[in-house]
């Protein structure tokens, strides 16, 4: 994960149309955007993510602020594009689902399946929550927004965001599948915590917690 300074530099470069700036931003934030959109837009997540970034690229001069503000801004776009794409996807549901991979599947495919399977499962459980809870959890936990940022993205009061987050987390903790999963995949603590640390460094920014 790039530092805040690197991200700030990337923002300036991207605004000027520099490809490397976009590369840094996209690499740092697209995984979280994509995961959030998989909850919001389901199968249309990839399309919605593309639309999100294109719109962000077009409108970047309208944004001013640092990396944290950019994150909130980006997720606000993502939310709109996600809702948009979901609606569109609903309308063309009769059509066959997106094409299967173009045959370039090779040794990577197996690796990807393994590394993605827990994420898929977890996103599925979160997506099963009531909509406002699912979004609040995703924006807080995965997007790394603080309560205020989440409230702005969702257009809700902070109190409502906190309650939705709490209810969502409670419901997840009570989810039988969630309880069973942990029991079934018990691993050595060391491996677990190293994954967690990397995760924290990758997707979770220094979320400034309001009190």
């Amino acid at each position: 994960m790039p530092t805040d300074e690197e991200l700030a530099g990337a923002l300036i470069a991207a605004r000027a149309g520099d490809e490397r700036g976009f590369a840094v931003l996209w690499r740092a934030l697209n995984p979280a955007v994509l995961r959030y959109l998989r909850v919001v837009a389901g199968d249309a997540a990839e399309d919605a993510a593309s639309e999100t970034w294109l719109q962000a690229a077009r409108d970047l001069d309208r944004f001013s602020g640092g990396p944290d503000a950019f994150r909130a801004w980006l997720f606000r776009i993502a939310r709109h594009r996600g809702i948009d794409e979901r609606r569109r996807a609903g309308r063309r549901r009769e059509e066959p689902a997106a094409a299967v991979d173009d045959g370039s599947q090779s040794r990577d495919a197996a690796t990807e399946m393994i590394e993605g399977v827990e994420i898929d499962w977890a996103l599925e459980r979160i997506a099963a929550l009531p909509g406002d809870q699912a979004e609040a959890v995703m924006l807080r936990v995965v997007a790394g927004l603080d309560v205020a940022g989440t409230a702005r993205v969702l257009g809700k009061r902070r109190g409502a965001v906190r309650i939705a987050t709490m209810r969502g987390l409670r419901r997840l903790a009570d989810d039988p599948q969630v309880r069973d999963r942990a029991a079934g995949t018990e691993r050595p603590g060391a491996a677990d915590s190293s994954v967690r640390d990397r995760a924290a460094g990758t997707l979770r920014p220094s979320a400034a917690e309001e009190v």
Partner: protein
Amino acid sequence: MRGSDEADRVAAGGRSGDPGLDHLLDAVRAPATTAETRGERGVAAALAVERRRAMAGRRRAARPRAVIVGVAAAVLVLGAGGAAVAARTGNLPGGVQRQAHRLFSGWGVPPVEAPTPVPVASGPRPTASVSPSPAASESPSPAASVSPSPPASVSSSPAASPSPSPSPSPSPSPSVAASPSPSVAAADRVAWCTAWKVDAAGGHPMNGRDRRDLIAAAGGKENVTDYCAGVPEPSPSATAKTKPSHPGKDK
């Protein structure tokens, strides 16, 4: 998860002590997968191109693609039931007209009390079946919420720009209304707002009155307020409303 304080802590990365929940949150925070970052160079190049195109468009004061695409939506927004006509001829109620001018001045929506009622050019209009009736200027006819299927035209066909260029006043003077100058930023705002309106037209459970209020007040719906009001954020208290809830209207 005893309370929202603890929930805040866990959401921000703390451990909950619940093995199942912690496992799930770890999974969802896991580092990027190969699939999630594949194609970085291609994407970055495409974004840079998009960015430069937007910049070039603005420099030449040409209409950025998004704006062109937005025209159809703008017509839709103002459009159904002849509101577009009313707006361009200055026949909307004051507040609405002011707002319409602020948002759509680029396309010949005059400011409030504009002296010259413009003879309306018969531009192509997606919702042509609804004839521009005078009544439309004061009542948001229920038809306003119909707007069958705009997004298809928006996403693809370049023909979707029913350019209102026939408008005789290409540069409506901003002198009357104390609104932000109809600069590039105004065009941007239009694109942004109309994109949202496309969402709405595409099935968002929102009635005609809501839509008109939205245009008139540039807000009420929280995110629209944020987007449409542009950089100077409106007071957050005005945006307190939650999601539009239309019980039983879900598809």
